[in-house]
């Protein structure tokens, strides 16, 4: 039950909404999302959206790997090269 999936909101009816991912549509609750908007991605956990995702995985991947690049090319990396 800890599983959570990112879904895209397609309809909003008060605290209820419809969200989808890869053709799967699901009724969800948006009690915990301030001013939810159609088209936004949210993380859904046990039927409740628990947070919005700004631009889903793409941005996240980009940030993560840029960060790694920065980190491993910094001083630390140069110190450890050759130790493997």
């Amino acid at each position, binding site marked *: 039950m*800890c599983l959570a999936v990112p879904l895209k909101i397609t309809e909003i009816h008060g605290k209820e909404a419809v969200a989808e991912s890869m053709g799967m549509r699901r009724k969800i609750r948006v009690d915990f999302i*301030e001013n939810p908007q159609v088209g936004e991605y949210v*993380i859904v*956990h*046990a*039927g409740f959206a628990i947070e919005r*995702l700004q631009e889903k995985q793409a941005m996240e991947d980009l940030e993560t*790997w840029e960060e790694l690049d920065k980190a491993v090319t910094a001083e630390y990396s140069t110190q450890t090269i050759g130790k493997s």
Partner: protein
Amino acid sequence: MKTERLCNELAALPLDREVCLMEVCGTHTMAIAKSGIKSILPKNVKLLSGPGCPVCVTPASDIDAILELSMCPNVIIATYGDMVRVPGSTPGDNLARRKALGAQVRVVYSPIDAVETAKQNPEKEVVFLGVGFETTAPGTAAAALAASDEGVSNFTVFSMLKAVEPALRALIAMKGFRVEGFLCPGHVATIIGERGFAFLPEEFKMPAVISGFEPEEIMLAIWHLLRQITEHTPKLENKYKQAVSPRGNILAQRVMASCFEMKPSYWRGLGLIPASGLKFRKDFSGLDAEKRFAEILGEEARGARKGSPAQSACRCGDIITGRLSPVQCPLFGKRCLPEDPVGPCMVSSEGACAAAYKYMDYIGFSENG
């Protein structure tokens, strides 16, 4: 390519001794097993599964109480699917078996679905099994409040909800606890905020990294943890910023706090931990299944059951506290199998034993379990 590069960076870390890290989230456990991350980590890095699977930390005495309640003819048990096959203190006795004996058990995806079940069955008492951590607690509270607002008087919740922080504190205080860094659960952090894990480095000098759920994200988080360890710079790093803010989801926290307050709670493997469980506030006692079915679910009734002998040789308690890996349990893969589980760690789809068994072909479990 990214994974290969990360593997190289991990191998380049100056680790000259064994280091144990722990994840405390069932989704992390499954993602790690499924992706085979353990098999590509340096041999001296051990990943242990902590108390991150809600079903796994629920004590047998709670399950016994639920099984007894399920046999009441006017009661419908509404539950997440994971709970259906969890045995109580008698091996083989679970909600699935009770259903075959006539109990009414409905599997729901969301607590809101359980409220719907109550509306559709006004002549029955619908009891939702509220298990989980801060991720499921807000939704459980919201569903209970919705039932109250709509006057659905035949809906109650048996709250076995728990908070993650007290369990981590209890683990760290455990004699012989050898974990040197925590892979913090991304979804719990989504609710409580990254500050919810700041106590790890601040009070215990314990490296902590909040991670997402893709294999590369987990690998990256492990690399950050190991880097903190090798550099002796324990801190909290949030590597799941697309969902986790410093203060978390305030709306969810508000709903949770309006409905629940802290109570002492029993954890499988960890025992009684003060202020680690969530119970209904007095104003909402009408929603509390412990009150409505006090003779079965009440603390006194459940306390009496705790005297019953522990079940067989199951070592789930040791596994979720990092003392053993699944393969070290004498029942693993022999008497305890996914199709006929003895303990909750093999039952739950997020359990450490289920994950290790399902993906053992990939993880080289005998070496790095």
